[in-house]
């Protein structure tokens, strides 16, 4: 091992000191939380209502079963959102004046659906369109509820992709055009591959949010995990099932969030 410079020794000592302080402060905070909360007068009641072992054990299998529904809804919504989001983003970037109405439509679409509360869109489309008199199975809440999610989330994804497209310098497009590529090909082979790559982390965040918003579909009937937890809550007058549902959600969203962070870090390193 080569001789350490004074600077290296100094830095190592600084690092060690920082780690010690971080460890002590973390332990102190956790100890305070763990020791102090149970001392509050209502803790026993809160524990019985929210962290009730017996209720947890009784309801957890049912919650897991209901979670399959969430995953299924997510899986069929996600590709549709990606496709529609991309289409709207491209529509907003059309430069041919003849396509102006399409561009206008895309702008109105993103403005409206980003501005509306998701739950209102779900009610409106989930109850409203089937109410027009569609026959079964075309009035299913699964179809129209999913469509509501797709419409809202596509608006967000479209904006994210558009910001990616706009972050690609115009000289790229001009260079592609001067090489003889058509406008469409320039978009497809030059702009989009760069743009989409840049916004992957931002889109990951949206899909993590979607994972949770899938639960909103329960408002129009489907019994997914959130609704199942609500049924248990009502039957047992106990909020523990919601804690169980939260744990199941976390088991999926935390890895997804970490992965998004990892991608983001990798990207910022690649750029610097």
């Amino acid at each position: 091992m080569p001789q350490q410079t004074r600077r290296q020794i100094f830095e190592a000592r600084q690092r060690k000191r920082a780690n010690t302080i971080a460890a002590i402060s973390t332990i102190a905070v956790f100890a305070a939380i763990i020791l102090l909360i149970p001392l509050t007068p209502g803790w026993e009641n809160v524990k019985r209502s929210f962290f009730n072992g017996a209720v947890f054990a009784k309801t957890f299998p049912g919650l897991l079963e209901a979670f399959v529904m969430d995953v299924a809804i997510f899986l069929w919504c996600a590709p549709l959102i990606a496709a529609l989001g991309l289409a709207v983003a491209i529509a907003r970037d059309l430069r041919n004046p003849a396509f102006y109405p399409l561009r206008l439509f895309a702008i109105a679409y993103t403005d409206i659906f980003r501005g509306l509360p998701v739950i209102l869109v779900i009610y409106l489309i989930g109850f409203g369109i089937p109410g027009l008199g569609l026959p079964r199975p075309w009035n299913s809440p699964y179809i129209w509820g999913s469509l509501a999610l797709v419409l809202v989330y596509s608006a967000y994804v479209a904006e994210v992709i558009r910001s990616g497209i706009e972050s690609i310098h115009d000289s790229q497009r001009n260079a592609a055009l001067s090489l003889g590529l058509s406008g469409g090909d320039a978009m497809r082979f030059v702009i989009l591959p760069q743009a989409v790559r840049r916004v992957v982390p931002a889109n990951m965040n949206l899909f993590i949010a979607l994972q949770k918003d899938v639960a909103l579909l329960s408002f129009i009937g489907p019994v997914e995990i959130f609704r199942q937890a609500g049924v248990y809550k009502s039957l047992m007058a106990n909020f523990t099932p919601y804690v169980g549902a939260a744990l199941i959600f976390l088991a999926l969203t935390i890895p997804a969030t970490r992965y998004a962070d990892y991608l983001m870090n990798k990207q910022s390193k690649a750029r610097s």
Partner: protein
Amino acid sequence: MKFWTTAAAMMLATTAYADTCATGKTLTDGVLTVATGNPAYYPWVMDDAPESGKGFEAAVAYAVAAEMGFGADAVTWVRTSFDQAIQPGAKDFDINMQQFSITPEREEMVDFSVPYYTSAMAVLTTKSVVDGGAMAEVSSLKSLIWGADANTTAVPMLQDLIAPEKDPLLYDDNADVTAAMQAGQIDAALFDLPTALYLSAVVLNDGALLGQFPADRSENPDQFGMLMEEGSALKECVDAAITSLSESGKLAEIEAEWMQATTGVPLIK
């Protein structure tokens, strides 16, 4: 001297609330705070105005209060959701009545009074479903697509009484259940009979009551109790009041006054 003033104060206190077991056990001394839903529905509370004493639960509340020694002017009303009623910690009501069904699991977390009403369950549907061949027989009901209010005991009852072939769809409140029915997403829904009567007559466009499961039909019938904080000191007094009301026939009288005749609804075979 001090002894005499204390004694006098005690005498005064006892004369003010003569003969009540509820003294000192309510949130505010001398006042009974009753909670109801927001909004409270017909026929339980008329026009969402429980202070009028009109509607079954409003009338029962005032009768129970009178039995416990609270005059009509000593009853105040608050509104809570179901979740607020069962949340841990201090409650802002003495008793809460909004068709809470008594179940053993719920009893572990909160206190219930003895039941003040036992409800039959009824099948709410639309005329077009009836025209489509649905009959008041369990075998015919199994093949329907069912809905229910997720916050009620109708959910386990549905499995108990009917065991539908397809998983039922569940909703947050009556309004959403009827919206789904109007959209043709569900064929039928299970409600307590008074609520079903109201929804079919007033809310649904072409509502129909297919039939009822009489209360003695299911193993644990839907019995409504007043909800109180777990370990409430008031429970004894409330129980005594309700028992005495039902023994004197007053409770049945109130029921006859506010509940529609339920005899016209056919029984389900």
